[in-house]
């Protein structure tokens, strides 16, 4: 929700915290004064930080900004309608390169930001952004967006329950099932394990299981969803959710998972690192939560690390001003704000920011979280679903196979076969 009150207060705070701003040597923040920008953001913590702080940007630059905030699905529907009609209605938008990057890039819906990065305020520190994430946002040699965060699924777990049941986070992926079983036996009141079950959302969490199990989405030009490793991942994820997950888990996405865990009704939750603030809301989990990566499997440890990016519409008629907004929103100063809101910054240096340091120190779980995110940043890949243009559609087929196992309508091999077929067709189409 757009917190208007909060917005005013924090705007004032931010204006003070940007001492370099207007009078930074040689950089004219007021260059595009009087122009108006339309910005489309997702209703998640990252989008909210922009909405809450945009007044400071307006003050700094004299640019008027209209922020439209929608839930992810509606944001994307709106965006595609706008872009598909070559409309200049939106100047700047949030995007997930791992999901739609290839698709939108193929459609010509991104402005190449690489040349613009030279026109940056001295304190922007473009080089400080994670090279891996910048690379993940580069398609056909064009930098399509600037990363706003880094996130990936991590295992939130209840240290108190684990202690009570004499358990530790398993050392290997196969140990997950035993741990869940033990949790169920020892502490029946809480759900042992929860992760995403919603068809179109679960590729994000499932992909880590799949890769750790040793799977590769594309092997020799063919879909590897049903490889032996794939089937093992399918069985494990399906069994965990089916036997140790909450009733109705097939409708679960991050909202439900966070609230279940936050309310103390789940012992383990495998969900995005970005959900820290939601999980910690109210403070009940502040002192009994541990955060770890998913244990490595036969294939090793391949955590997913992706980023939301801020992109510019090629139809924007205010590209200069739009770039100002993008560099402001991805600047170290704003990303420090993000960090304090529980959004891990795509800049390793942020951890050294004094305010961030203070925040991390204030609760032990925050440092644990930061460590997990650092691991993600170092070892993570962005393979959520198939690395093809029709990535969103590929996620649907993965979701179908997994959900069939969770609801028990099919055995893993039977559930997987039709998905593999559809995926092979998609891969073939992509090669053309």
């Amino acid at each position, binding site marked *: 929700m757009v917190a208007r009150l909060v917005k005013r207060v924090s705007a004032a705070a931010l204006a003070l915290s940007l001492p370099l701003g207007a009078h930074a040597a040689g950089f004219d923040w007021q260059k595009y004064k009087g122009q108006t920008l339309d910005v489309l953001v997702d209703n998640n913590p990252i989008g909210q930080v922009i909405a809450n702080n945009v007044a400071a940007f307006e003050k700094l630059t004299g640019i008027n900004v209209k922020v*439209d905030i929608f839930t992810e699905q509606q944001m994307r529907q709106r965006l595609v309608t*706008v872009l*598909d009609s070559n*409309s200049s209605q939106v100047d700047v938008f949030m995007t997930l390169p791992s999901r739609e990057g290839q698709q939108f890039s193929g459609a010509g819906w991104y402005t190449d930001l690489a040349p613009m990065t030279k026109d940056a305020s001295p304190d922007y520190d473009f080089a400080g952004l994670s090279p891996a994430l910048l690379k993940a946002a580069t398609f056909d040699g064009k930098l399509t967006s600037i990363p706003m965060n880094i996130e990936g699924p991590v295992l939130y777990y209840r240290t108190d329950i684990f202690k009570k049941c004499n358990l530790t986070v398993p050392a290997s992926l196969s140990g997950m099932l035993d741990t869940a079983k033990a949790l169920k036996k020892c502490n029946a009141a809480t759900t042992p394990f929860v992760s995403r079950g919603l068809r179109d959302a679960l590729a994000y969490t499932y992909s880590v299981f799949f890769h750790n199990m040793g799977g590769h989405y594309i092997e020799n030009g063919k879909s590897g969803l049903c490889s032996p490793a794939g089937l093992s991942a399918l069985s494990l994820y399906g069994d965990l959710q089916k036997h140790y997950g909450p009733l109705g888990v097939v409708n679960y996405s991050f909202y439900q998972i966070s609230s279940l865990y936050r309310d103390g009704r789940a012992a383990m939750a495998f969900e995005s690192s970005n959900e820290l603030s939601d999980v910690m809301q109210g403070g009940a989990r502040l002192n009994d939560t541990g955060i770890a990566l998913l244990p490595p499997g036969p294939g090793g440890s391949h955590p997913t690390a992706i980023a939301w990016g801020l992109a510019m519409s090629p139809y924007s008629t205010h590209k200069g001003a739009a770039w100002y907004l993008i560099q402001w929103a991805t600047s170290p100063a704003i990303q420090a704000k993000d960090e304090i809101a529980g959004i891990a910054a795509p800049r390793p240096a942020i951890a050294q920011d004094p305010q961030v340091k203070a925040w991390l120190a204030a609760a032990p779980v925050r440092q644990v979280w930061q460590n997990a995110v650092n691991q993600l940043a170092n070892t993570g890949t962005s393979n959520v679903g198939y690395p093809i243009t029709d990535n969103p559609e590929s996620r649907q087929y993965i979701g179908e196979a997994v959900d069939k196992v969770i609801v028990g309508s099919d055995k893993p091999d039977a559930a997987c076969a039709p998905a593999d077929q559809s995926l092979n067709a998609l891969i073939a189409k992509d090669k053309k």
Partner: protein
Amino acid sequence: MNKRILHILVVAQLVVVALGILFPIVWMVMSSLKSSADVTAYPPSFLFKPTLENYTHLLETTPFFAYARNSLIESGASTILGLALGIPAAYAASVTRSSWPALVTLSARMAPGTLFLVPWYVVFKALGLVGTYAALILTQAAITLPIVIWVLLPAFDAIPRSILEAALVDGCGVLRSLWRVALPLVSSGLVIATILGFVFSWNYFLFALVLSDEGTKPLVVAAFNYIGEGSTDWGGLMAAATLIALPPLVLAIAVQRWLVAGLTLGAVKG
């Protein structure tokens, strides 16, 4: 069976049905008045200390009234537009007994709403109207117009032809016979058409999803933001739901007598 016993049986069944109909709405209002601890209590608590904190929080953190004002402007204006177009059309269709114009307008209801989104966006973009009240009022009128015609056509049909003829003999032109004679005779139909048009326009979200922007976003579209958050905050979600549903409910209940009479009467002919 004894008539009295029969009557009691009927009334008893009605009470049960009425409670069944009422339950979800009552549950929503009740949940909206619960504190965050009470709302997720299981088994659900019936005795709780009611609190307005969900409402105050909602109104403090979101521009709820701005969305409500948008809804009001868009539903109100599209209802007026629907009436302005629908009244003469229904009258003409009734008088000339040619139903094709009415059928044309009703046909809009047979296509899925999603079909309209992209073409409309293209058109309104070309006109520079995306995100304006005008675009929303025009598109929502595509909902109100068929409702107005659907309600008024049977109402006009129920006026004896001779009364309209008498008006002609008395010297009324077409417009005046509509304004002075026919319209006063369908006044209750007019109330129903207005209320239903307003309510269904208020309730419809799909067009505004694409065609509105932050400044013109109606409540039902804003509601989606609450749904996401709502799975973590039932009390807030139900408070938002209650407030969104309140205007159409209050309006409809204010004219329930006419509404029920109109539905029972009009539908038989339609």
